[in-house]
């Protein structure tokens, strides 16, 4: 894969990359740093990628690891009450977004990769290095929790 193809394939998934960083890092500056670092790591290590068809999966794995390294380094996680960020989306969608961000990270990441980015459970298993069965059970658990969160949110009295 030459530089042009590399850049083109990164550009093609840049919205995905953004959403993944959004789900894992609170600060916009951290998200940009993480994605830049992930792209550089992918570029430096491109010769080590055995199957170019897996480029997107591979880059996302690097990005998730980079986000996690940053979380650990900075000792901070996405807290449930700290996600709000100015957005042009409707209230319903904001609630949905906040509910996703309120999930524990081990559930949030599979949800984002599966339901938002359309990856199959075996692809997610590969990205997160966990068994496929674990991905499925986390998705089940996440659905239940999301339903509870959204039901609770709907039933909440208005301010």
């Amino acid at each position: 894969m030459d530089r042009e193809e590399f850049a083109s394939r990164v550009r093609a998934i840049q919205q995905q990359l953004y959403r993944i960083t959004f789900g894992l890092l609170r600060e916009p500056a951290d998200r940009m740093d993480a994605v830049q670092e992930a792209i550089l790591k992918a570029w430096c290590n491109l010769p080590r990628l055995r199957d170019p068809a897996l480029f997107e999966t591979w880059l996302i794995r690097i990005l998730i690891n980079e986000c996690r390294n940053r979380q650990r380094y900075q000792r901070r996680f996405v807290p449930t009450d700290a996600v709000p960020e100015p957005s042009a989306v409707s209230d319903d969608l904001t609630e949905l977004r906040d509910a996703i961000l309120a999930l524990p990270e081990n559930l949030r990441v599979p949800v984002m990769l599966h339901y938002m980015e359309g990856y199959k459970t075996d692809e997610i298993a590969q990205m997160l290095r966990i068994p496929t069965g674990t991905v499925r059970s986390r998705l089940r658990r996440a659905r239940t929790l999301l339903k509870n969160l959204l039901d609770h949110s709907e039933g909440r009295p208005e301010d």
Partner: protein
Amino acid sequence: LKRNDLNRAFGPAPEEFLNRVEDTLNHLEERNMKRRYKLTTLVAAALIVALLLAGAGFAASRLKLFDYLNGSMPIVPLNDAESMIQTELGFAENELIRVAVEEGVYDGYGVLLKLNVSAVDPEKRLGSALSLAVGLATEEENVLWVSMPKAVFIDENGASARHNSVYNEDGVVVSDLTSARTAQEEDGSMSFWLSGNEMPVNVEELPLLLSVMVTEDVNAVKPEELSMELSLKRAGEARRAHLVFEDLSPFENLNFVSAEVAYTDVRGYLTLDYIYQPNYMQPLNLMFNVYDADGNALSQADGWGSDGPEGRRSERIEIQSSEETPGRLILEILDGETLAPICRVPATLEPVG
């Protein structure tokens, strides 16, 4: 869950984000140069660390296996623990380094290992001319690299100090030279202390895989790997007891399934099995502290956990051991993120066997 709604919920990437992606892509070669410079700086920083450690060489060289336990919440092994230590557990080398596993102990619940890594070429000091990483896993793990979430590895807090780390091809931190669990010896070699308790319990013999990665090339992302197998025989017998909580559901959505403490002469291990499904605004995850009946801390909000289905979680916490099983312990439940205490739950101990 509709994908379009979900994607719209997060909105499009802001202009600034897209600009950063574009800028990175447009300057890949240039950034590469900067990155090399950064890595060179990194190794220079590691050299400083190595020299600082060498300055404290006398103290470092006197450290022994149980010094690993002298953390911020020290655990003092009981008198008979020294006799459980096995020595000269294995040796391996390649063209760059020699690895000797000097001491180790497996008490049926946890492992402690001390190893020494030295450079084959005496001109090369580890941590400066050579960068290295050490990892350890149980036999079942497929050890291809040192992966932070895996069972046993170098000090996690240190490993996350990314400015002194080396990454593998997946972007995972594989090495850290400023870990509190490493020390530079007077002869330039390095000692590593490894600890873990996420492994088969009470097997007679525990096979382990040790992996040491080393590189001379500061730009190498995946260092060369030297692996060796070793095994530790179980030493000593644990004194076990069930914890009987006065309240099995100390707060909403938390239910204890079982709790057991095992005291060995090295340390104590509290294993908690619980179900926790947080509601909106409840802590996302929990941590635990253990106190004796007089309120003295026996642990410090730390532990190893694994997730099961339906909110079930198993957690093992290392605590100070005890010659005799106490009649009572107090478990403190904390918010896993803020470490703010939520409540304390007293428990009586019923010896097993």
